[in-house]
């Protein structure tokens, strides 16, 4: 599944290790035995993935709540 979880502002970040700007890339997220494939800001060099505060506190928090049956 592809998803639009990349804010253009997130792509202004530069990977500290590789010194390369992040790009939209496919990333696997695993939580409670469920694996999801989504699009996230990713370093094209080392594969580092950025999860922004808004994503963590928004969609990902809601996903956690659903999977934890809260």
């Amino acid at each position: 599944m592809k998803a639009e979880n990349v804010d253009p502002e997130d792509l202004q970040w530069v990977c500290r290790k590789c010194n390369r700007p992040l790009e939209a890339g496919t990333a696997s997220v695993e939580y409670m035995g469920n694996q999801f494939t989504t699009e996230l800001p990713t370093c094209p060099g080392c594969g580092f993935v950025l999860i922004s505060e808004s994503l963590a506190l928004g969609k990902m928090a809601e996903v956690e709540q659903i999977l934890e049956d809260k």
Partner: protein
Amino acid sequence: MADTPSLPLYESAALQAVTGPALRPGGLELTQRALSYCALPAGAQVADLGCGIGATVDHLRRHHRLRAVGLDRSAGMLGHARQKDPRLPLVRGDASCLPFEDGRLSAVLCECSLTLVDDMDAAWREIRRVLAPGGFLILTDIYVRAPHQAACLTTLPGTFCLKGARSRDEIAARMQRSGFALIAWEDHSEALKRLAAELVLACGSLQALWGAGGDPGSAPACAAAVRQARLGYFLSVARKEVIP
């Protein structure tokens, strides 16, 4: 989400993007699992009520050699299905008025569709009518896991698609009243949770989806009701009882 606001959830592009052609939690894996209880012979005539874009009908014909027919009330879904495969036998209609002769079918499948039927009493009567004695009813659907909170769903305004969800006891009692003997019940709530999580990642908050099919103003109430009712997903197989 770029869907037309008036489209019900099951017709939304967002749902199709996440589930593929099956358009329901658990997809064809649950169909396969349900069929394992039935041992239907090749050539048996079956109907899929609420067939959507025909994924189950195609699967039943191709992999089980069943004479499967699909029925859906949505012209849009059937049009989409015919574009993919014009040979699939699909008809427009509603479960409350089935275009089959009495006792004609070996099995009826309702996969995440019965809760959407307006006239539930008529649908149960019709399903019983068209099934042969001993015929199978394969039912997978949303159910309420917190029965004392079921009222919070039924009293919601508008045409919220989950309003028809009932508790396990209510569904089992309805089957019995309608002349069916339950032979299998399985909880597959994990499949529903996974689908909900995928929808959130793909489209944003579920609250936006609850508002998409009707009045966006009622979305918060719908979201709260869904949480309180602790919705789950079940698979059941029942047989039409032969009344002497």
